């Protein structure tokens, strides 16, 4: 029994964290807000992540990937959440790459190389992100790979202005079908999304802790007020207990644990609830300054609102757990 990340996992995570600290300032997220209709023109960070092996991390080494698992990806995803990365790392690295690899699809090489990105959609929800080159679309329990440019897209506006969404219309072509386990891909997505939410929550908490120490009212930092302290302690409590749940779920996926789906659901509601609390208390502890789009925090808040409901809401995931418990 040992619940800790390996030296390699920690090193890899810190390498990605360093890259993002350098290359992913808030201005980058803001830039994505400012050009809401265009796909990102600056692919340099994505390229560097691909060069480091992050994008192809889950693909077997024989296909040019790193042959690693969900737990190896975990720390990187947390970091991507911390900086509110807009690129489709969850969709491409955690969901699509293993699907393409398992299917032996020819697009895999260019995806791993960082030349093409992939978003994911399901037939029962026509709204997908369309800032990618390719779309992995579920229809009737089968995956299809389509070129994003080839589907009819009606733009939709997200509360998170950096998300480029559209409802799409497309007809599945048998020639584009890929074999693949949809449920397993969903579980990977749920856990990856949870990791990002943990990162988002940590950033919101860190920013808030920093702010309340410098903002003074009544002659002292507002962070010296117990009402503020206790709110932030509650955020830490939620985040600190969600983190291990997410890591455990990733481990269960790697181990093929029969309860991996249940662990994924627990991870998702814990992480989403923690992130939403971080938004709530983060905003409240900042006061009006965080209630303006001129202050960066709103981008993290809105990302949380958007992502907390992706891949199933907390209520849906608790319901999956409820069914597992036979309640």
């Amino acid at each position, binding site marked *: *029994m*040992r*619940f*800790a*990340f*390996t030296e390699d996992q920690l090193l890899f995570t810190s390498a990605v964290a360093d890259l993002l600290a350098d290359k992913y300032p808030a201005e980058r997220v803001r830039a994505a807000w400012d050009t809401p209709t265009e796909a990102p023109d600056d692919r340099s960070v994505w390229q560097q992540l691909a060069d480091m092996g992050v994008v192809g991390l889950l693909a077997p080494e024989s296909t040019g990937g790193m042959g690693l698992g969900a*737990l190896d990806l975990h720390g990187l995803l947390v970091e991507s959440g911390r900086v509110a990365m807009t690129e489709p790392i969850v969709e491409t690295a955690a969901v699509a790459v293993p699907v393409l690899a398992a299917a032996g699809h020819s697009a895999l090489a260019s995806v791993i190389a960082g030349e093409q990105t992939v978003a994911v959609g399901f037939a029962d929800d026509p709204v997908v992100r369309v800032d990618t080159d390719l779309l992995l679309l579920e229809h009737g329990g089968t995956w299809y790979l389509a070129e994003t440019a080839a589907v009819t897209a009606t733009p939709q506006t997200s509360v998170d202005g950096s998300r480029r969404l559209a409802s799409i219309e497309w007809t599945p072509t048998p020639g584009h079908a890929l074999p693949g386990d949809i449920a397993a891909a969903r579980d990977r997505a749920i856990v990856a999304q949870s990791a990002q939410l943990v990162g988002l929550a940590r950033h919101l*908490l860190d920013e808030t*802790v920093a702010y*309340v*120490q410098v903002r003074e009212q009544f002659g*002292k*930092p507002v*962070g*010296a007020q*117990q009402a*503020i*302290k*206790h709110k*932030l*302690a*509650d955020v*830490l*409590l939620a985040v*600190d*207990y*969600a983190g*291990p*749940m997410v*890591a*455990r779920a990733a*481990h269960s996926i790697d*181990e093929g644990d029969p309860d991996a789906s249940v662990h994924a659901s*627990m991870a998702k*509601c*814990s992480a989403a609830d923690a992130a939403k609390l971080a938004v709530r208390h983060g905003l409240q502890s900042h006061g009006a300054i965080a209630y303006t789009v001129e202050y960066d925090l709103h981008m993290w808040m809105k990302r949380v609102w958007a992502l907390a409901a992706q891949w199933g809401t907390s*209520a849906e995931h*608790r*319901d999956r*757990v*409820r069914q597992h*418990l036979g*309640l």
Partner: protein
Amino acid sequence: MDLTWNADEDQFRSEVRTWLAENVPAEPLPSGDTEVGFRLHQQWEKTLFDSRYSVVSWPEQYGGRGASLWQWLIFEEEYYRAGAPQRVSQNGIFLLAPILFEFGTEAQKQRYLLPMAEGIEQWGQGWSEPNAGSDLAGIKSHATKVDGGWRVNGQKTWTTRGAFCTHLFGLFRTDPDQERHRGLTYLMTPLDADGVTVRGVARLDGDEGFAEVFFEDAFVSDDDVLGGVDEGWAVAMATTSSERGLTLRSPGRFVAAVERLRGLAARYPEAVDARIADAITQAWIDAQAYQVSTLRTVTKMLDGESVGAESSLNKIFWSEMDVRIHEIALELLGARGELIDDSPDAVDAGGWMKGFQFALSGPIYAGTNEIQRNIVSERVLGLPRR
């Protein structure tokens, strides 16, 4: 990450499980916070001891098995899973013993550990006083140096099961000129000593689980000073993190409580609406979260990292989870929930209401949750003290 148990650990688990199945009393014992129940629990502690299950993690010479922290966790899981009796020895074995191991002299260890493991000597924790609760450093009970020892005067209060205990450990002011955290000393004393008077006090549930302890010129020998004179604060703080953290309330206890709650839901399916089902699910998730987080904590401890102020997060988590578990049970029981003791229609002999009342003390004892949130925000998050 390796979340599997090795063959030794599996073997240990199955031994523990078998032993508990054969030895746990079929009928629950009366509350250990009553005179009659306490004595029965004390006998149970002796039964545990005789099979070397009372203090599994201690060295063999003191009645333990030298079990690893992992084995200790397994033991706790099995213990609560089996519905085994409340541990009336807890304040000795979980709160005093770690201090004895860390700060005690060889003679003190020889003198006190074995009878504690056997359950023959039972210890009360004498920290709180009428005017020193959260503000523990406000302690007024004092000990004055005399030949060969100390003359003690003052009052302790809220001493758990003090009316049934044989001994007390606690903090006393030994240097009256020093203020607050300074000049305190950790002392141990038998409760039947001259000048010591114990008065039992009924707790919220009516059981005599509290006591007030009065000292009037009681003598405590130099041999019973634990750690250095005037260094009691540091000694006391060394236990708080084990108390709030792992040892006092291991995950097994809450995993088992949620399983009992699921059992209750299965027995009264008509009372389980969607809201209650959702609440039970969340409670189950919380217990899982505590379990998973504990695996992380134990790994850290085994790696030699200190857990420190983070143990305050634990304390908040388990105590508030415990309240929720019992609130859900009472909600589920509806009007039957108020029936206690031997009422013919009481469910589980009113155990859920009793458990609820006890759960409500969780956010108060071992440092209130307000104090824990202060600690988390100041020492973990680094917010200004004032």
